[in-house]
């Protein structure tokens, strides 16, 4: 049985919704070490030899199985680079729950840089959920710099839900995807920064196969003195369709630079981008106040809804 302290349990719950050991395949990592692992008949997890991290192999035809690979850091001053590679066979349908929670009560910075690479086989479906969360009141920073690389074979589908709502001081997120014919990528990012936080989120989606499609949507809120740069780029190099959208709310002295961009290299590439930044509409606040909420409560509700 795994030994976890209360802080670690709380972090696992925040990032992976885990109250207990998950079903199916999993690898739980805490303070730089694998603390528990389970493989199934169809899903194998192996530690890498050369660097820190794991290789996850999902057999062709695996359906309705899940893989949980959450990471928590509860000691101050840990800095780690972790390489996780996912090899998903053909005709699979799996759920992957990743995420990292850092609790830093100390004075040294804690940093987790996860590099995730996905190789998704023909006609497979993957739902990927990644949550980042920070807590602790130490002066040490909580830093997360995830890199996600997605290689999608013909007819595969990937849905990504990337959420970072609280407590991460500095983040530099990079997501790169390459889609072959008829592959489909749907990304929903939810970002909230507060205090002095800084977040950079970069997406580069390459549509190289005919019939491929991408929909990359980022909703974010920047409050206090925080800063965000959202850089969403879709490149169409085939008869494909792509859509990117940044929709942001700024509050207090928050600042956001949204740079949605498109590159079309094929006459049949249909690409669209949208971006909107603004404060909470006064009318929305007024409506909720007429229902009895204070202005601060109204703001909270509007943001909760927006980031849901």
């Amino acid at each position: 049985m795994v030994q976890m302290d209360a802080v670690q349990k709380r972090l696992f719950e925040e990032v992976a919704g885990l109250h207990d050991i998950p079903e199916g395949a999993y690898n739980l990592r805490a303070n730089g070490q694998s603390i528990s692992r389970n493989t199934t008949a169809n899903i194998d997890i192996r530690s890498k030899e050369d660097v820190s991290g794991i290789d996850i192999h999902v057999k062709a035809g695996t359906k309705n199985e899940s893989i949980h690979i959450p990471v928590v850091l509860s000691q101050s001053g840990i800095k780690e680079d972790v390489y996780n590679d996912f090899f998903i066979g053909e005709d699979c349908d799996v759920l992957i729950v990743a995420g990292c929670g850092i609790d830093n009560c100390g004075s040294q910075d804690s940093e987790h840089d996860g590099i995730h690479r996905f190789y998704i086989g023909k006609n497979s479906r993957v739902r990927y959920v990644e949550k980042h969360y920070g807590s602790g009141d130490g002066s040490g920073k909580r830093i997360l710099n995830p890199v996600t690389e997605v290689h999608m074979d013909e007819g595969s589908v990937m849905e990504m839900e990337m959420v970072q709502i609280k407590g991460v001081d500095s983040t530099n997120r990079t997501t790169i995807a390459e889609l072959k014919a008829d592959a489909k990528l749907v990304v929903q990012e939810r970002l909230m920064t507060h205090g002095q936080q800084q977040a950079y989120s970069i997406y580069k989606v390459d549509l190289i196969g005919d019939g491929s499609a991408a929909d990359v949507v980022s909703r974010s809120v920047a409050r206090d003195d925080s800063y965000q740069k959202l850089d969403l780029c879709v490149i169409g190099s085939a008869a494909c369709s792509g859509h990117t959208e940044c929709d942001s709310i700024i509050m207090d002295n928050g600042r956001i630079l949204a740079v949605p961009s498109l590159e079309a290299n094929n006459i049949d590439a249909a690409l669209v981008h949208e971006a909107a930044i603004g404060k909470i509409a006064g009318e929305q606040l007024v409506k909720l106040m007429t229902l009895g909420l204070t202005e601060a409560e109204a703001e909270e509700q509007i943001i909760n809804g927006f980031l849901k």
Partner: protein
Amino acid sequence: MLELKNVSFNAESDGENVGIIRDISLSVDDNRFIVITGPNGGGKSTLAKLIAGIQKLSSGSIIFDGVDITDKNITERARLGIGFAFQQPVRFKGMTVLDLLRIASGKTLSISEACEYLSEVGLCAKDYINREINASLSGGELKRIEIATVIARDVKLALFDEPEAGIDLWSFNNLIRIFEKMRSDRRGRTIIVISHQERILNIADEIVVISDGRILKQGSKDEILPEITGTESAVNMCSKIQ
């Protein structure tokens, strides 16, 4: 009881200070059904916003249930029991109908309770309860949800700003039923409806005609209705009703 004493509201318009509401005094007893009507731009919505605290009075005072609420903010007035359904309801990206009804009721409303409120405004609950209150809702749907947010609250004074606008024939039969139910559910509840709709004027205890920021006429339905249906202003009203 609601009492407006010499209420005025001025606003800047083209660099000029114009009177939008000019010295209106009005008192409304408990358990009354008041309909405010009058030409477009007369100041009806502004008056309702002054009562709900959305606009600040330029002068005068408002007394609600014996409490001077002139300097109270929107939230405080809401908590004292004033509800307001907007003429043009607001949309909320991401928030669902259920979320909004829960906020409105101020308690952990069960799904079946929330569905009841939606059914009352003629929306098939299961289709709407989890819908986002975003641009995908039609104007009429939004309007009904707006009315439901006021029904979901236990208010002493309910203000409805043109509740029938933009909603189909359903309004004629059901809107009136809603108002009657609201009145009978809670003794002493006052309802003020802003409307151009003759069927709604017809069920009023009292009609107040506002024009150019002033009360033009005020009295029982029997006194006022024949007057306005027999004058030019009725022509305006009918053309608006279509």
